[in-house]
């Protein structure tokens, strides 16, 4: 019995280095086999998507760009904004207007957003966020938002400059009628992590969904060519 055990130990010692190399070449740690389907972790999925985009053939690339262009051309118009802001269990309603126009004949879009919501009394600050999330108040009175295209990989890039001049930017891909964007900026205290825009063809409604620390902001933007801000912005002459 003893020699048999020793022989097994010997075989294990001989196989061990080979096994270690095989494991190193094996599937990504994020990949799991479940019910016959491959389930990937977020990082592994992003890596795979990036590889697919890098190896995309010219015809697919051109088609993707065409789809993005067609989608961007749905955005120009004047909208009345109704929505909701939620932070740490408290919520408030959002009101405002948005005016989006195309840039020349191209698919680029330029929006001015004037939206506000009541002060949310959060009490304690559960995530110790500095400055307080109430800082979001008034930072869209106004804010400027632009959308454009990235050719390689085919994506929509957007950037918003808030009323306090802080820049937030995102990039994302189209899934059916929704542009799913993630923050390109550093998410520390002030942040909109994701910014998803839904605009169906021929629809009067455009939806903005933004996720912020401890909650989210949703704009339901209905097309209304006659929408006017109740307190229009006043242009001042700076000396």
């Amino acid at each position, binding site marked *: 019995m*003893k*020699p048999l055990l*020793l*022989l097994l*130990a*010997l075989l294990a*010692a*001989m196989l*061990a*280095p080979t096994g270690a190399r095989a494991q190193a070449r094996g599937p990504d740690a994020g990949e799991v086999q479940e019910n016959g389907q491959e389930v990937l972790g977020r990082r592994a999925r992003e890596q795979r998507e990036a590889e697919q985009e890098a190896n995309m053939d010219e015809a697919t690339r051109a088609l993707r760009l065409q789809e993005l*262009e067609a989608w*961007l051309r749905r955005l120009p118009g004047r909208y009345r904004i109704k929505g909701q802001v939620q932070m740490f269990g408290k919520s408030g309603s959002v009101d405002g207007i948005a005016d989006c126009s195309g*840039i*020349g*004949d*191209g*698919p*680029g*879009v*330029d929006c*001015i957003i004037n939206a506000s919501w009541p002060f949310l009394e959060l009490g304690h600050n559960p995530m110790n966020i500095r400055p307080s999330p109430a800082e979001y108040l008034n930072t869209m*009175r*106004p*804010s*400027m938002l*632009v*959308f*454009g*295209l*990235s*050719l*390689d990989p085919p994506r929509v*890039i957007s*950037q918003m*400059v*808030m*009323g*306090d*001049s*802080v*820049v937030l*930017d995102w990039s994302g891909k189209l899934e059916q009628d929704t542009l799913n964007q993630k923050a390109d*900026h*550093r998410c*520390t205290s*002030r942040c909109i992590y994701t910014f998803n825009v839904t605009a169906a063809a021929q629809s009067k409604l455009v939806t903005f969904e933004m996720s912020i620390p401890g909650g989210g902001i949703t704009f339901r933007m209905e097309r209304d060519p006659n929408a006017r801000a109740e307190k229009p*912005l*006043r*242009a*001042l*002459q*700076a000396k």
Partner: protein
Amino acid sequence: MKNGARRDGLAICLMALASLASAATRAGEAAAAAPAKPPEPDQQLGEVLVEGSRSKPKRPTFEEYQQPFNFLARLVGQFYVGGSVDLHALGRSEDLRKVSGRADCVGFGVAPGVQCELRIRWPGTTDRNDEEIPGGLSTLDPAVMLFGFESADATLRPNGLRRPSDKDEPRQPGVSYILIDSKGIAEKAVGEMASPDILQSRSKCTAIRGNCERVAQITAQPDLKTVDINIDLVIDGRKAVSFFFELDRVPGSASVVFGRKEKKAR
């Protein structure tokens, strides 16, 4: 008993042989991976002494925070645009195209953020096969530029260390901007203040695929009369096109800022 001890001894010998064999295999693989020839004597490194110390990023001063805001305020206004496009960036007169146009930059908010509507054009140029060349045709008629404040604080973790992915981000407060051209292509960059008057940025080209970098410098003079924009496209490490836009403030034009509270007249 004697046989058992002999078998144990044999097994120990075999194990030792196996581990020696695997070590030899690894050594063989390493030898195969190593270059066949030893390096030339002049390519061999001598002794290199590296010294270093761990430094914590310094918090920007009040003046450094203030610089981007002052710079942004200088961009607000209406401008005539002149300048030139050097199609091959070789400084030859036959490659220069004269630029003309307008820029209308409005401010908004407290800082202010700045949005510029550009209408800049120059005589179109294509190559012998009538194909487009970089910078040959204006895509800035019209175009929109959006400028805002980029905080250096946001690039730091709470422990004061920079994230590995943030190596391209500014170490000082700066100005972030995006340009959407008439074809809808977005070019964005994060600029650092090289001086109170000069913003510099480097970013990957969006409109040109491959190894292309946009090197930009925006100079806004404190007298508020001019803003100069220099953009070089560096393709495969070589300056391929050079844009120089000179913005002269329209005399007597208003600087418009939206969204500020109106000061009450006394």
